[in-house]
């Protein structure tokens, strides 16, 4: 019988880590497939996404925030916003969810070998970037200089705090965290991420910039990157749309004739500029 792309595989929630509390909490779920055979051949590349479903509630399209170099499990970071994400936030370790994927295109990890990488993330936008950062750090010698610029509203809103602490200890990675509003006990940059980018002033020579976050942040980050001399095929971002099938059939996530779930979510700024259509 034909293989059914709509049917998810069952996975257990190994561990739930609360990244950010407050009004819009973010939790990271570590998921392990029940069937060992699926764990082995669920191969994905950073930037790809998975459709996580809670049976009886619905499905959501999340970027896989763990790196393929970490075997045996996948992680997704979920911000509590709608019906399904609220239900996901009420899960405990040991519960069962459905996972299907991997879907969408991916960051061009092989093409970017030897290049300097600049990650510019904001809020929950850090999830797809984290997958790429872990991958690049695990294969550190394949890549050039690495700059990670990440900002959140307040220090409590910063996700993946321990990992950032780890990365700050490393010599070969420069981390530039920022928060929007001044807080005592915060010695790093205060202000919006695009301004932090101008302060860091990475050089565009032989480098790639990847940015994910709220649309308003992406807009100003791209403007500043162009001010710093980055050309349009050096800038990459991921886009978000309402999604239901995840495989380019249900028709709703299109920008022009491209489907964000199948032909995206990773787009270069060059591609974005010449496909018209609402985004």
């Amino acid at each position, binding site marked *: 019988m034909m293989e059914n792309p709509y049917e998810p595989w069952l996975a257990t929630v190994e561990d739930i880590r609360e990244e950010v509390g407050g009004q819009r909490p973010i939790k990271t779920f570590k998921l392990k497939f029940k069937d060992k055979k699926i764990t082995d051949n669920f191969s994905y590349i950073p930037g790809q996404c998975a459709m996580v479903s809670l*049976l009886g509630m619905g499905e959501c399209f999340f970027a896989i925030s763990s790196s393929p170099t970490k075997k045996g499990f996948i992680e997704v970071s979920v911000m509590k916003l709608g019906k399904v994400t609220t239900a996901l936030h009420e899960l405990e370790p040991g519960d069962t969810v459905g996972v299907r994927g991997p879907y969408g295109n991916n960051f061009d990890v092989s093409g970017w070998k030897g290049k300097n990488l600049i990650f510019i993330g904001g809020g929950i936008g850090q999830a797809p970037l984290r997958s790429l950062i872990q991958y690049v750090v695990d294969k550190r010698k394949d890549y050039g200089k690495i700059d990670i610029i990440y900002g959140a509203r307040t220090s409590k809103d910063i996700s993946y705090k321990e990992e950032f602490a780890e990365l700050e200890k490393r010599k070969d990675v420069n981390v530039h965290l920022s928060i929007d509003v001044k807080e005592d006990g915060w010695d790093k940059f205060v202000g919006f991420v695009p301004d932090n980018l101008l302060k860091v002033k990475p050089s565009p020579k032989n480098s790639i910039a990847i940015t994910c976050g709220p649309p308003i942040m992406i807009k100003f980050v791209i403007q500043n990157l162009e001010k710093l001399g980055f050309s349009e095929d050096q800038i990459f971002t991921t886009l978000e749309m309402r999604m*239901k099938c995840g495989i380019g059939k249900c*028709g709703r996530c299109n920008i022009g004739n491209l489907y964000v779930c199948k032909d995206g979510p990773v787009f270069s700024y060059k591609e974005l500029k010449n496909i018209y259509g609402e985004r």
Partner: protein
Amino acid sequence: MDILIISKNDLPKFIDELIKKNTVFAPIENDDTILFGQIKKANEAKLDYLNSQYPPKALILNQTETLFKFRPGPKGDIEPIKIDEKKVIFGIRPCDAKSLAILDCAFSGDFKDPYFLTKRDNTVLIGLSCNKPGVNCFCTSFDDSPASSKYVDILLTDIGNSYYVEVTSDKGKNITKGASKFFKPAKESDAKAKTDIEKKAIEMIKRTQKTENIAEKLDKIFENKFWKEVSDSCVGCGTCTYLCPTCHCFDIQDESTLTKGARIRVWDTCMNPEYTLHASGYNPRPARKNRVRNRIYHKYNYYPKNFDVIACVGCGRCIDLCPVNIDIIDVVTSAGEVKP
């Protein structure tokens, strides 16, 4: 391709023979609405009809379809269902049959949709030519004819006291072989009668839509104020998408009681703002202008770019039933003439 003849009074017997061995769907009348329903006896089928409001696509891409069953909740599990529906659709119009071929592109590709494709293979299409096309039919604008046998397994054409039968596929062959006692080989005069009827039907189609290199023209006028003028009068009712044989957008929903449930697929319409509403409240297509434009671009620009076929068969349903007379023939033709 073998050519046969079946007399008019043998046809009901042939249909009854079909019903014995297959589940047969045919146009049935329910008050003044025509739709495709299962028939138990030949006389339930209504063959002198213009076309059904509710497209026969609904028999392949069902409006409500169970994807799989499950036990709901965080301790649930999944129970797949078997897809093995076999059916015969009798009396489908050539344009609706072509729409199924157009939908094949959307549902195959790198992710194959098992529900649509399995049902598509298990369905035999027995077409019925249009002797009297409707007011808003314009299948001839896509170099198709009201009596084309390209997309059906068997095509029947009413040539007076008998039906001219063209069997185009082997699915059709083993249907006619199974009921060969009703069919006789066709004579030269029958073939001539069929081409005359086809020519007469083509002349009756007065409305044509100009679509040569429409995709490139549409590329240049996406931001043109033409689309605001077209969509001003739209009330966003979505009838055009629910009746269109080539619309394939759907929504996936979970329905469950406390103990059992299922994930189902239902038709959806891009005319509804909730269709693209983000959980954050942002909506990339907030206004009717975006939505009306998206429907036209999806059929005349995006589909040609992805599958190089225009996703319209000229059945005229969206023109007949649009409450504010937004006429796709008029819209696309004048879109072609808009100066960028």
